[in-house]
């Protein structure tokens, strides 16, 4: 049984390590990001893909349980919108935080946009889409 305190502590460690790693890989650097997405520099792409390969192997060895989630109607349109936003602003939801931490103050505007977008999605989903993302949406 994992207590709330243990989960909180583990999440803080995860957050610290994630922020530290993502910043040192260079995901907060817009020029590096564009070079990754246009395949001019494969360094960051290989970091991400390499991580996925290691995680797949580790989870298989450790038999980490899988939570089934079906493919719903929001996945493809949502991913298209996210990809567009990421390429323009340079922010997947963690990166503007890392950018502000690195001194890029305009990333606060990206964060404001994310807050509005997240609110808008919950509102629009309840009102128009009615996409059931399951009880364990990531």
């Amino acid at each position, binding site marked *: 049984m994992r207590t709330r305190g243990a989960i909180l502590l583990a999440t803080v460690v995860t*957050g610290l390590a994630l922020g530290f*790693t993502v910043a040192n890989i260079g995901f907060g650097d817009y020029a590096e990001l564009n070079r990754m997405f246009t395949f001019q520099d494969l360094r960051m792409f290989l970091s991400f893909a390499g991580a996925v390969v290691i995680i797949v192997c580790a989870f298989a060895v450790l038999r*980490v349980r899988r939570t089934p*989630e079906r493919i719903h109607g929001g996945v493809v349109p949502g*991913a298209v919108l996210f990809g567009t936003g990421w390429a323009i602003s340079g922010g997947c939801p963690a990166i503007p935080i*890392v950018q502000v931490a690195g001194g*890029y103050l*305009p990333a606060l*505007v990206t964060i404001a946009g994310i807050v509005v977008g997240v*609110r808008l999605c919950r509102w629009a989903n309840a009102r128009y889409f009615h996409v059931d993302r399951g009880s364990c949406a990531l």
Partner: protein
Amino acid sequence: MTTYWPWWAGAVGLALVTVYHALATDRSFGVSSAWDRVVHWRRERRLERMDEEFADDRALAEALAAATAEHFGPGPSPVRQHPYGQPGTLRVDVEPPAGDRPAATSGRPAPLFTQAALLISVFVGGLIAAVTSGRFELRLDMGPGFRSLVTADPVWMTVLLFAGGVLVGFGTRLAGGCSSGHGLNGCGRLRPVSILATAVFFGTAVAVSFLLWKVI
């Protein structure tokens, strides 16, 4: 600038974070989901309180029994064969919630406070990285890359960052995850929905980045 980590160090770092979190908490972590719950903290807190009231199964069973008694009147247990009623419908009404409960709680996401802590610690981690590597610099632009590829005009920069942020916030929640939730945790678990989402958002970002680089 060559002060960034080599690719293998980044891969090992991201993998360690994800595997550590899965082992320590038995959960996936997702930054977009943390945003979603922190932004809607009022409603989330209300839901958590309601959840705590039904925290143990016994309380839930008693509440269900009380509700059943209130609805059908006190009498024989609904599960027992009913001489004149329709036992099948009663059984269907009463039994599933009690049976569903353990499955629903085991996949429950981390509490709201923990999600807020994730976002704050990402900030602190990023700050430590920026200061220790000597990259920290307060600035009012997004760097030379953004200036040459997107725009140098501060007004346009603000508009585009905000619009991009809205697309990121809306899109990640509609897709049910972002590069950490779907990309690392989901793909690592080989979940089809995550592999599809990652392929689509990465593909779209590649297309838009080429447009910004070559066309605009």
